[in-house]
C-alpha cells in the first residue's frame, strides 16, 4: 500500500488485538453467507408487538399520528402557496409563470418533482 495511505491510517487494520474473534474468522473470505441481517420492517415483525399490552411503549406505537392540521398546499417548483393544480401533470403551482414552466418541463422532471412529495406515478 502507498505510503500516504499508510500514514493517513484510513484503512482499518485486519487484525485487532482487543477482539476475541477477528473479522476474518467471523466472516471468512470467499464464502457466500447470504443475507445475514434483517431490515427494520422484518425486525419489527419479529418483535411480535401485538402480544404485548398496548399501553406498553414500543417502537411501533410511539410513532406520531398524522397531523391534525389540514395539509397546506405548496407550489412544487417554487415553494410558495399554491392555489392551483395542473390537471395534466398534477403539479401544484403558484402563478402563471410557474405554470408556463411546468408545461415546458419534460415528463421525467415532472415525475421527479412529484416524487419529492411522494406523489409520483410508480410503476411496479
Amino acid at each position, binding site marked *: 500500500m502507498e505510503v500516504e*495511505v499508510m500514514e493517513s491510517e484510513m484503512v*482499518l487494520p485486519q487484525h485487532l488485538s482487543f477482539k*476475541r474473534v477477528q473479522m476474518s474468522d467471523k466472516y471468512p473470505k470467499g464464502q457466500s453467507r447470504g443475507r445475514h441481517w*434483517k431490515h427494520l420492517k422484518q425486525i419489527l415483525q419479529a418483535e411480535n408487538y401485538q402480544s404485548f399490552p398496548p399501553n406498553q411503549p414500543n417502537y411501533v406505537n410511539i410513532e*406520531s399520528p398524522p397531523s391534525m392540521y389540514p395539509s397546506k398546499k405548496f407550489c412544487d417548483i*417554487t415553494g*410558495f402557496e399554491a392555489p392551483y393544480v395542473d390537471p395534466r401533470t398534477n403539479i401544484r403551482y403558484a402563478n402563471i409563470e410557474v405554470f408556463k414552466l411546468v408545461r415546458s418541463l419534460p415528463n421525467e422532471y415532472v415525475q421527479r418533482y412529484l416524487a419529492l412529495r411522494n406523489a409520483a406515478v410508480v410503476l411496479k
Partner: protein
Amino acid sequence: MPFATRPLRQSDYNYFPSTCPIVIDNGGSTFRIGWAGESDPRITFRNVVQRPRHKATGETVTIVGDHDPALIKYFDCTRSFQRSAFDGNVVYQFEIMEYILDYSFERMGADGPEVDHPVLITECACNPVQSRAKLAELLFETYGVPSVAFGVDTAFSYVYNQQLGICDRDGIAICSGFSTSHAFPMVNGEPVFEACCRTNIGGYHVTDYLKQLLSLKYPNHISSITWEKVEELKMEHCYVALDYFLEAKVFQKGTKEAEEKMRCWQLPWVPPPSEEPPSEEELARKAAIKEKQGQRLREMAAAKRSSRILELENELQGLEFLLQQLENVQESDIASFLSRTGYVSRQEIESALARVTQSLRKARGEQTEIEEKMEPSTSEKYPLIDFPDNMLSPEQLKEKKRQLFLKTTSEGRQRAKQKKFEEELERERQNQQDEEKRLENPELYLQQLRAKHKELSEKVEQRKRLKTNGLHTNGNNNISGGVGRGERLNAAQRERMRLLTTAAFDRGKGEDTFGAREEDWQLYKLMSKDNDDDDEGPDENEVEFNRIICRLQEIDPTFVAKSDGGSVVATEIPRFRPQTKEDFQIIFGVERFRCPEVLFQPNMIGIDQAGLDEMAGISIRRLPSKDDSIERSISNSIFLTGGSCLFPGMVERVEAEIRKIRPFESPIRVVRASDPILDAWRGAATVAAAPRFQMQTFSRHDFYEKGEDWLRSYCLRKRKKKN
C-alpha cells in the same frame, strides 16, 4: 467535509482503570466515543463504512468514517458506497456496526486482549429488543466488555442541561436527529416512554430535500451538488421561518428584503479566453481580399464574353462571305461548292446566319428579338385542311391529319401565350393601383400591407399545419401530453393507415359482405399510395402572400420575411451564448427555509405524520397522569436538542406553534440545549461517571441468564428499579 481530518489514535488508553466506563453516542449520522467524566468525546467520526478495493493489491479494505478525498484515487470505489448500520434509527447491520466499533476502539488506543471497560452506548427510544440484544452480544462476545448499559440520547441531553440549569426537572425534550425526531415528557428528570412520540423525519430529510430541489433547479450542475456540499449549505444558510407563508410571500413579491435573503453559491468557473473583436485593419484587409476576388471573377466573365463575341463575329463574317461567294457561283456549280463548305443548301446557310446574329445580339446584351415572324395565314400553312376527306388521296389524307394536329397545338400555344400576356397586364395594373395608393398615403398603405401580410401568413401557416396534422389540431387532442406526437403523418397518410388497419381487423368478423355494394371497391382507390400526393398547386393565398412579401421587401426596409422553416416559432434554435459567471451560480432563496420546514410539516415530502410542534402536544396528551399542574410545568420547560435544532429561528417557531395548541396564558418556555449536538454524549458521560452507574449496567451473565423479556424491559433509570 466536517470530519475529513482523521481522528488521531489516543495514547493514554492504558492510564484509565478498567472500571472507567467508555461512553459511546451511536448517532445516526455521527459516532462519538470517549471516557466517562470527560467533557468532550475523544473520537468523533461519521457513522459510515466504505469497503472499496485497493487498486494496487486488489484486496478489499475497510474505511470507517469520512476520508481524505485526495487519497481515494488509490481505491476502486465502483462497487462500494458508504453504508450505514442504521435503518431509520435502529441498528440492523451488525457487520457494519462491528467495523465501526473496531475502528472506534482502535482509535481509543485499545491494545489489550479485550476491551476491559464497561460500555454505555446510546440507542433509540424503544429500541426493538432484537437490535438491543445483537448489540449487547457483539460487545460481550467479540470485545469481551464486562458490562453494558443502554440509554436514550435525548434523555442524557436533557439531564445534562438540567444540571446546567437550562431546563427544569419536568419538561418536554424534543430531539430532532438525523433520521427521526422524538418528543418525550420528562417528569422528575426521567423520560416517560409511555408518552413518547416519534416522527420519521430529521436532518437527513432536510438535506435530501435541499439536494433534490437544487439538482432539479440546476440540472447542469448536478455533479457539483454532492451530499457533503449540500449538508454544508444546509448548516450554513438554512433557517426556520416564523410563518412559512408570510416568508414565502416576501420572496414572491421579490422585494429588496428577499433579494438580501438570497444566497448564491459560486461554482468554480474559469472565464474562457476572450476573443478580441477583429480590428479595423483586419476588417479592411478582409474586405479588400473579397473585393479583389470579385474583381477577378468579373474580369474573367468579361473576357469570356468578349472572346465569345469575337468568335461569333468571325463566324458571321465567314457566313456573309460565303453568301457573297454563293452569289457569284454558277447555278450548276452550287452543289459542288456547297459540298466543300459543309452546308447542304442556301437556306441552311441563311438560317445559320440568322442564328449567329441572334446569339451575337444576346452576347452583346442587346434586346433580343422576341417577336417571332408573323406566321403565315393558316390557309397557306395548312392547305389541306379545308378540303373534305373524300376529295383526297390516302397520302393526302395522312398529310391532312398531320396538319390538323400541328394546327391545334400551335393554336393552343398561342392561347397560352395570350393568357400569360393578359396575366402580365393584370399584375401590372394591380401594381400600378398599389403604387397609386401608396403615393396617396404611404403610412396607411404600409400598415394595410402589413396587416394583410400577417393575415395571409397565418392562413398559409394554418394550411401547412393542416397538411401535416390533419384537421383536428386545435389543442384538444394535445391533452395526452404529446405535443409532437401525430405530426409524423399527414392527414391523407393517416387516413390511409386507418383504412388499412380497419381492413385488417375487420376480417373474420361476422359475414364478409365486402364487394356486395359498388362503393366498397372505392376503398382500394383510397388505399392506393398514389392518393398521397397532395400537391394541388400553390393556392391563391400562397400566391398573394408571396406577392405581398415581394412588395413589402421593395418598399419597407425594416421588413424581414420569415424563412420557410419559421412556421413554428418555438423551434428557433437558441443562439450560442458564451457561458458566463452567472451560469455557474447556484442561487437559493426560498429553499433556505423551505427545506427545514419539512420538520414542521412532514407532508411536504409525503410523510403523513405530525411535525415537531404537534409532537409536543401529542406527548402531553399521551401522559398517563392527567394532571394539569404537570402539564403546566412541563410546558414551561420545552427543551430542544439534536442537530436539526440548530437552525436559526427554531426556538421562536416552536414557541409560536406550541402557543397555538396550549390553553390561553399557559406558561410556555422553549429553550435550546447548550450544545444540541454534543450534549447527549456529555450527559451520558456524566451519568456513566456517577457512582450509581455500576448498578445500572448489566453483565454478560445477566444477559444470558435473565432472558429476552428482561432485556426488553431494561431501562436505564436514575433511581434503582424495583427488579
